[in-house]
């Protein structure tokens, strides 16, 4: 098994946390992972992007040239990374922030209104977890309890009150694509 994912969104949309959770969970499942974040000037408001590679085998280059999956939280992110798609790629779009795209290669696209779903459950910041739930449901990567234990670990201390809403967001994301 090998999976190359590019995650991108507005700085502040939680792509870092999303990518780390997937990487951490898969690491615990015994997979090799590399997670390469953009760094430096990408602050709240700019495009933050992350390359995540998962494999049974040793991973060499952490930089992805062709992605198996794109998880895109807003339109500028999609426009920046659509060139990394190949015919059998999957595309996960936050449809709350990306209206229409031209699907030239006719690839599998999952349009998830992540921001709206997160808003409905009371915390717009949890849109990243909605995407996580959806992505994991489609790809069937990790069992939900493993994600939740990683999430609990990350949200220790000051951020503990946010655990429940994030958990709910993961579930709602998974639910949404089950009905897709």
């Amino acid at each position, binding site marked *: 098994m090998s999976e190359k994912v590019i995650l991108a969104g507005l700085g502040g949309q939680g792509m870092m946390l999303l990518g780390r959770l997937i990487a*951490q969970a898969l690491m615990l499942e015994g997979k090799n*992972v590399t*997670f*390469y974040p953009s*760094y*430096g000037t990408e602050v709240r408001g700019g495009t933050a992007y992350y390359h995540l590679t998962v494999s049974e085998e040793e991973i*060499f280059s952490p*930089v992805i*040239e062709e992605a198996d999956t794109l998880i895109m939280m807003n339109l500028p992110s999609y426009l920046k990374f659509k060139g990394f798609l190949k015919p059998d790629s999957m595309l996960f779009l936050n449809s709350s922030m990306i209206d229409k795209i031209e699907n030239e290669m006719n690839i599998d696209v999952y349009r998830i209104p992540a921001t709206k779903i997160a808003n409905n459950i009371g915390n717009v910041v949890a849109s990243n977890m909605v995407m996580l739930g959806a992505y994991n449901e489609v790809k069937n990567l990790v069992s939900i309890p493993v994600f939740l234990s990683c999430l609990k670990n990350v949200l220790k201390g000051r951020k503990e009150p946010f655990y429940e809403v994030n958990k709910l967001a993961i579930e709602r994301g998974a639910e949404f694509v089950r009905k897709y």
Partner: protein
Amino acid sequence: MTSTEKNKKYLLTGNEACAEAAIQAGCRFYYGYPITPQNEILTHMAIRMPQVGGTFIQVESELAAINMVYGSAAAGARTMTSSSGPGISLKQEGISYLAGSELPCVIVNIQRGGPGLGDISPSQADYFQAVKGGGHGDYHTIVLAPGSVQETADLVFDAFDLADCYRNPVMILSDAQLGQMMEPVVFNKKCKPNLYKKDWALTGADGRKRNIIKSFYPVKGELEKFNAKLQKKYRQIKAEEVRYEEINIENADIVIVAYGTCARICKEFLKKGQSLNVKVGLIRPITLWPFPADIIQKVSERVQAILTVEMSAGQMVEDVRLSVSGRCPVHFYGRTGGGIPTPKEILKKISEIVSVREKVTCTT
């Protein structure tokens, strides 16, 4: 992170792994100044040092940092500083003094693009600065080049041991990509801070003859004698500490020489296999100084060509050429200013080498 357990896997950036490994290796004195892309080292040290009873100082300048390292090393402690290109340039004065006073310490360079302020993307353009001295005078630092987050951690442990063993500064030459990316890492190496007796250290001359740490030899002839002693030490390091990784070099037609991030890209190229009708192998230097000259010389006697791949305009290739001494053609492929070679580009370069070679074979 408040502590680490043996055998437990952590998902950490190369920078965090570097800092944590230093702590695990018994480093209790860290001095640093912010510069991207190595800031995570400072942040990690700021959290962890107080937890282990160590010292973290965010200094006023790189000069202060390297000289505090000089002081703590002279006092007999394991000590470290880190930076990236512009900051490492500022530290060179201190590194020369550390080498001249034979003080053990670890200096980390998470390379970024240069010259000048350059940019913050990965680079290998500080190779010359690291392996050829960098500061004034005839000296060498031992230079270790990791190729993964795990190897960053492991080499930091080794760096402290090597520094103490030879009373010499050791540099970890990494880059922005290896520093910023996250990979699983375990901290299983043993901390050996008391392996080497530091009876030369400054502790107060209580009940013993005084110790002096210095690099000034004004009496004619003394400095030459001291340099001869240094060179003898360097020859011993060259004889005993060369490290490299080799892949498929036994029957290779072409051997690539690449380190750090570039070696990873080259491994990706090797893994993908090639439609080319040549066998390609890889030598990955892990110690850049001492340089693995012997193995490169050995393969140069039987391969058709050597290709050096770097994120620079061609620096390590000079050491490769010295090792090869004309025994086979040495080609170079490099990217600068934040460009990272891709497996496709390496394939293209190898194809060029092969087609040139075939043309030559046809005409002769």
